[in-house]
């Protein structure tokens, strides 16, 4: 856009001149004076009133500045925008350009009065266009910058009543003067007065006074009511701005009216159809003047410009197109000779019209039409230049083509075409509605600016190519070459908006820097493509840029441009080989020039690959890579396959999927060189293979003396490499395996290294990478190749066969199983069952069945709910662990050396478990053989112990009649002296009970019970309880068979300490069985000590309540001797432990089964704390059966039947008491 004359392309908007805001703008008065020399005096508008000062004035000034800035925008003016104007702020004076040009002073005076024309008209001799110029940008600038549509005067309204009239009169006179000058000048500029009221005016003057004064001024100056504004002093700047906005909106309409008048005037002149005569007939040049079509062109052009001032887009397009047609028609451009400067002027005009048309189309959203218009202008001008000018096959034309493309890009940017910004991510806009469905050329859809810049860059390239074809004769400076040549140059070279040949591409000197122009364009384009995520095109442009930079020899820039492409592997990773190859070569050159050895070598390494096309005369020798590259130190270069691809393909495979520690596994590393056939064989210095997992890295060093299996042709050479293990003392991590082999890689050749890798530790091992080290005189290189490509089928090569055997997927992974342990662990003489409450001894034997002596360590780990204390013994080594929760262990108990096929015994003693539980014991022997200390081996013996209770029991507590008499409340003799301090014997009530225990052995074998105990574990305070009778056992004990019930009876006596205590007593009992395992039959070893120990299993019986306060009835029976014919005495004892006097009724029913003596019905009175017994004597009539005495005891007061409780030899069912009558003795 820059080549076009200033102002020729501006977005035309009405011009307002604001005067009187500050005096600082009065300086630029001289220029009109200077101009006046040729064109006559300008029209000076001046006022003597002082300019406005103060805050408001400066605010208004900056406000107008902002409005003016906005007026310069090229974006489309929408309906919402109230106005868009340019504002020029001046002081009190302003000079309008002269209306009429003066006659040049040199000519002779004329006879008739000359007809003077505007100084911009080709009719005036002083104009640059005189006599046959068409139009120039001066005229547009005159309207845009010099002649305002509205002249605004700012004044104040003084509030001082004394000077008010005087001031108003002065103002009136001033305005009248300006008005008169304007009228006289012939300009139709509207005069507008804006009067600012000051702060005081608001306070002191009433609205009516102000109104009157304004009316007075207006009438006195003959101004339109619309042309005078009064702004009372505003509180805030925001309000002032609002008021000014509304005034400008009104004035905008006035301004539009002004331009409409001008446009009408131009059209009127066109319709006249007369060719105006110049002030003076031309005397120089062709003495040709403008013809009628020329004038029509002028008028149309003017109408179009005025329409643009009015923002009437349609009218503007129409007039521009009309003007354009006339200009390129057969009457105007066709008849201008191409050597004339007017030819280029006309071309410029055509360009300007086209650009303005394009802008109008873009404003209207007719994007495709705009492209079509762009194309049409290019084609038309091309056609003209071919036909009438210097042809299109020269640099000038290409320069213009590139300019024309840039113009489009700039237009799109400046107009801000909606929907095409970088944020929208659109590449091109769909055609507008008017062209929908039409057959369009693809590029007629408006593409984003990146495309246009690219086209421009391409034309710049063509321009350079053509410029370089300029013959040397034409490249000399014009003053140094003969005049004839200068003349011929003018004819042969198109210099429209571009430098002549001697500047474009001079013989000596720099000339036009085409490469820089191209790079600028390309960078513009690239940023656009990048913003739309078109990274591949951006990369392509980067490459083009780099090539241009290479021509300028700015190698660092080339590297900076290409390095990102190289590093992110664009194109290479997607196998666009030809593209990546191109990038690599350019980059290599740049790297070589800048001395970047690492990049040079990396690229050389990459380019060895025969995927890339072979470059003729290239050495393809890695050793010569750095020839010609200056480098001070010997570089050590590290690259990997994720940065630079490799011509060496590596794969690694283990022979088998699984191996065992302590054994070896065959593995193959295959290296295939895909270098060009002509390339020099590469001899690697060493190879290092690294693994993930417990496998030491392998280093293979080149050894040229090693027998190289010189296989021919296709079949790979398989060479066995023997590995030796290196174990540096300092750090075991640095251990590695080494071997030697011939490591020369010939192009197209596959070298397979087969090695036997000793496996040491178990686990998964995978080959992760291989590092190839290459050493040349000039540099050293480490190239890292990844081997861990998942899913790749491992290939196994056999000597002599070209094709490998495909073994399995993931051939680089090996599972190393632990070495199979041959140490036998066993439990010696395990018991069938272990019981709670007995100590558990476990004996474990270790039998070394390995072929060699082993050094063993033992781990014992017990898992369970609660682990008792245990101890592990092995010869002199002993370890004890305290009780713990959940888990407990002994680790690393050294057992020492166990010779081959000898054994050892270890014992574990667990303390008795208090309750049934489960133990999981894991005994692990860690050992290594003396012959192979590096391989750890372990053997595990799991032992599951289920510890159960040996006995279970159930219980029954039955009442018995206590034989002793109850203590009496009135017994004074027993009252003791408490001072003695001895244990007071119990004095309270006593009861006797019998606990019947039914117990059974849950053991799996017969056990010996050596004793049974009843333990009173708890009694409520105030009570006593003791066992008075319990079963006795012999010393050998009683054999107890499994799953069989046994009974044991215990008699207890419970007693309260005092008689006064009325609370019941709770007693807690426990039943303990003392038992031992039976002595075994085959008991040779002295382990009997353990099996002979007596274990005690204690079972809680539970809690019982005794000695309540309720009365109870106890029946006891006494059988007489058999001689007395089976007489039975039945005692009914009623106890009254309460503190009440109770009365009971006893009734005995007669029965068929027995006869009885005793009261049939009686009443018993019981004192508190007493008991009484009633005795019945029964004579059973039957034998060997239960008889049922129908005895009822009734509480007289409560009328409640009491239950009669049986004691020994009796029982009870739901109907009552039953008494056993034994069989009569025989005989």
């Amino acid at each position: 856009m820059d080549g076009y004359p200033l102002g020729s392309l501006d977005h035309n908007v009405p011009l307002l001149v604001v005067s009187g805001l500050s005096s600082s703008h009065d300086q630029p008065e001289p220029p009109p004076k200077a101009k006046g020399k040729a064109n006559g005096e300008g029209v000076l508008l001046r006022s003597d009133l002082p300019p406005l000062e103060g805050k408001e004035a400066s605010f208004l000034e900056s406000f107008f500045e902002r409005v003016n800035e906005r007026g310069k925008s090229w974006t489309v003016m929408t309906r919402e925008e109230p106005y868009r104007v340019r504002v020029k702020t001046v002081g009190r004076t302003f000079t309008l350009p002269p209306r009429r040009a003066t006659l040049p002073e040199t000519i002779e005076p004329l006879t008739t009065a000359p007809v003077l024309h505007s100084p911009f008209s080709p009719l005036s001799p002083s104009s640059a266009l005189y006599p046959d110029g068409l139009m120039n940008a001066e005229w547009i600038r005159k309207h845009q910058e010099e002649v305002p549509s509205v002249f605004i005067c700012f004044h104040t309204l003084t509030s001082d009543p004394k000077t008010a009239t005087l001031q108003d009169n002065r103002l009136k006179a001033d305005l009248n003067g300006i008005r008169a000058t304007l009228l006289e000048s012939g300009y139709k500029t509207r005069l507008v007065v804006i009067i600012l009221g000051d702060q005081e005016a608001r306070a002191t003057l009433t609205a009516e006074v102000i109104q009157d004064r304004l009316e007075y001024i207006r009438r006195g100056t003959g101004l339109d009511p619309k042309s005078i504004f009064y702004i009372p002093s505003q509180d805030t700047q925001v309000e002032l701005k609002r008021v000014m906005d509304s005034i400008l909106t009104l004035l905008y309409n006035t301004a539009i009216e002004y331009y409409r008048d001008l446009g009408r005037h131009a059209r009127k002149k066109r319709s006249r159809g007369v060719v105006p005569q110049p002030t003076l007939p031309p005397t120089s040049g062709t003495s040709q003047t403008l013809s009628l079509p020329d004038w029509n062109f002028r008028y149309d052009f003017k109408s179009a410009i005025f329409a643009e001032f009015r923002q009437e887009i349609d009218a503007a397009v129409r007039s521009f197109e009309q003007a354009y047609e006339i200009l390129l028609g057969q009457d105007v451009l066709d008849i201008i000779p191409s050597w004339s400067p007017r030819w280029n002027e006309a071309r410029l005009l055509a360009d300007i019209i086209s650009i303005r048309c394009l802008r109008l189309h873009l404003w209207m959203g007719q994007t495709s039409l705009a492209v079509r218009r762009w194309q049409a202008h290019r084609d038309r001008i091309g056609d003209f230049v071919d036909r009438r000018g210097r042809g299109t096959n020269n640099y000038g034309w290409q320069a213009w083509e590139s300019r024309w493309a840039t113009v489009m890009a700039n237009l799109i940017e400046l107009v801000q075409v909606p929907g095409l910004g970088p944020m929208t991510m659109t590449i091109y806009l769909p055609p507008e509605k008017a062209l929908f469905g039409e057959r369009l050329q693809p590029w007629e859809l408006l593409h984003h600016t990146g495309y246009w810049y690219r086209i421009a860059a391409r034309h710049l390239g063509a321009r350079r190519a053509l410029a370089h074809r300029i013959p040397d004769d034409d490249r000399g400076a014009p003053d140094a070459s003969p005049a004839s040549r200068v003349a011929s140059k003018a004819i042969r070279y198109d210099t429209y908006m571009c430098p002549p040949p001697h500047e474009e591409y001079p013989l000596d000197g720099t000339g036009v820097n085409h490469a820089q122009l191209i790079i600028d364009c390309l960078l513009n384009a690239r940023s656009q493509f990048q913003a739309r995520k078109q990274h591949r095109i951006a990369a392509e442009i980067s490459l083009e840029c780099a090539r241009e930079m290479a021509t300028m020899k700015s190698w660092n820039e080339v590297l900076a441009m290409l390095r990102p492409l190289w590093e992110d592997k664009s194109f290479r990773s997607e196998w666009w080989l030809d593209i990546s190859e191109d990038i690599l070569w350019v980059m290599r050159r740049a790297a070589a020039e800048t001395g970047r050895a690492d990049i040079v070598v990396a690229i050389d390494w990459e380019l060895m690959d025969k995927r890339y096309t072979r470059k003729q005369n290239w050495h393809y020798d890695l050793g010569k890579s750095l020839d010609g590259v200056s480098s001070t130190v010997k570089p050590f270069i590290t690259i990997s396959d994720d940065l630079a691809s490799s011509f060496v393909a590596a794969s690694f495979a283990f022979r088998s999927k699984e191996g065992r520690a302590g054994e070896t596994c065959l593995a193959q590393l295959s290296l295939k060189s895909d270098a060009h056939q002509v390339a020099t064989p590469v001899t690697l210095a060493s190879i290092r293979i690294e693994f993930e997992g417990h496998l030491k890295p392998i280093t293979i060093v080149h050894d040229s003396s090693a027998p190289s299996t010189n296989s021919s042709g296709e079949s790979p050479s398989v060479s066995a490499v023997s590995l030796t293990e290196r174990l540096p003392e300092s750090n075991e991590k640095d251990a590695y395996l080494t071997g030697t082999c011939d490591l020369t890689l010939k192009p197209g050749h596959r070298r397979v290294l087969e090695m036997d890798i000793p496996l040491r530790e178990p686990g998964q091992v995978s080959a992760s990478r291989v590092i190839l080290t290459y050493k040349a005189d000039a540099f050293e290189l480490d190239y890292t190749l990844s081997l861990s490509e998942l899913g790749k089928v491992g290939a196994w090569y056999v000597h002599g066969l070209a094709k490998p055997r495909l073994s399995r997927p993931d051939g680089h992974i090996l599972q190393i199983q632990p070495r199979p342990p041959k140490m036998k662990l066993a439990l010696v003489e395990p018991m069938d069952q272990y019981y709670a409450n007995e100590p558990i001894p476990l004996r474990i034997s270790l039998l070394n069945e390995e072929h060699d002596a082993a050094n063993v360590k033992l781990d014992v780990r017990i898992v369970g709910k609660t682990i008792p204390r245990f101890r592990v013994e092995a010869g002199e080594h002993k370890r004890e662990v305290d009780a713990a929760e959940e888990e407990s262990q002994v680790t690393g108990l050294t057992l020492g050396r166990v010779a081959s096929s000898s054994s050892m015994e270890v014992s574990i003693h667990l303390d008795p478990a208090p309750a049934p539980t489960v133990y999981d014991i894991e005994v692990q022997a860690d050992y290594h053989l003396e012959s192979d200390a590096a391989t750890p081996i372990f053997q595990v013996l799991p032992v599951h112990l289920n510890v159960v209770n040996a006995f279970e029991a159930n219980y029954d507590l039955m009442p018995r009649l206590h034989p002793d008499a109850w203590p009496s409340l009135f017994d004074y003799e027993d009252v003791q002296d408490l001072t003695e301090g001895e244990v007071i014997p119990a004095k309270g009530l006593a009861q006797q009970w019998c606990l019947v225990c039914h117990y059974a052995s849950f053991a799996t074998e017969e056990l010996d019970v050596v004793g049974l105990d009843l333990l009173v574990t708890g009694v409520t305070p105030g009570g006593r309880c003791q066992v008075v009778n319990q079963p006795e056992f012999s010393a050998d004990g009683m054999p107890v068979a499994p799953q069989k019930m046994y009974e044991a009876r215990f008699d207890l006596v419970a007693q309260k300490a005092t008689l006064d205590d009325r609370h019941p007593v709770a007693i807690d009992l426990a039943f303990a069985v003392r038992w031992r395992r039976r002595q075994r039959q085959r008991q040779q070893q002295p382990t009997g000590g353990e099996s002979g120990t007596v274990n005690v299993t204690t079972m809680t019986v539970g809690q019982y309540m005794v000695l309540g306060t309720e009365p109870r009835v106890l029946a006891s029976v006494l059988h007489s001797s058999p001689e007395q014919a089976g007489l039975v005495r039945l005692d009914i004892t009623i106890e009254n432990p309460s503190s009440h006097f109770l009365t009971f009724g006893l009734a005995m029913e007669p029965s068929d089964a027995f006869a009885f003596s005793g009261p049939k019905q009686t009443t018993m009175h019981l004192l508190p704390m007493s008991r009484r017994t009633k005795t019945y004597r029964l004579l059973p009539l039957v034998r060997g059966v239960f008889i049922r005495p129908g005895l009822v005891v009734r509480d007289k007061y409560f009328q409640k039947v009491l239950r009669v409780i049986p004691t020994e030899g009796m029982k009870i069912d739901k109907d009552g008491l039953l008494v056993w009558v034994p069989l009569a003795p025989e005989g």
Partner: protein
Amino acid sequence: MSAAIPSVACLGVIGRNNNPLHISIFPSYDPLANAFTPIRNPLQFSLLLSSTIDVFDLRSKNSTASGDYGLLHAIDDRLAAYGFETNTGVRMVCIVDMRGRRVEAGGSGAVGVGAGLRDAELKPVFRAMQSAYVRLLQNPFYDPDEHAPLGGKGGKRITSKKFGDAMKRIGEAWTPGVTTL
């Protein structure tokens, strides 16, 4: 009087891994030399094809259901790239030279001389390319995974001569208005 009509300048098949599978280049008419020469060199065509991947990626976000992308973008005032994507992610690109061939004006063959091109006019090309590709896939010796390894990078090019011939035939036979190839 002769006029320029569009012709195919290059046919490209791009694999799932954005790798080039096939590139066929066709000569365009050069009025200066009055001969048929390719308008760009193979490297430039490679760059042009790879640049279409960006457009495919950009447009696939607001994707068209059919896979026919129509005009991808214009390259300059002669070349324009049109695209099509199969269900399996294989992309077919047709670079059209809008002035690639010469016809005598007034000849009946020229449909709308110099009047641009509709997207639909390229449909036969893509249809034919796709059926050629399907025929290639039917060949048991053609392993698609070798040409676009799953999840991998790159891939081999198509070497089938039959496929190449089919591309050549398509590129040479197409002119605007042709409905079947």
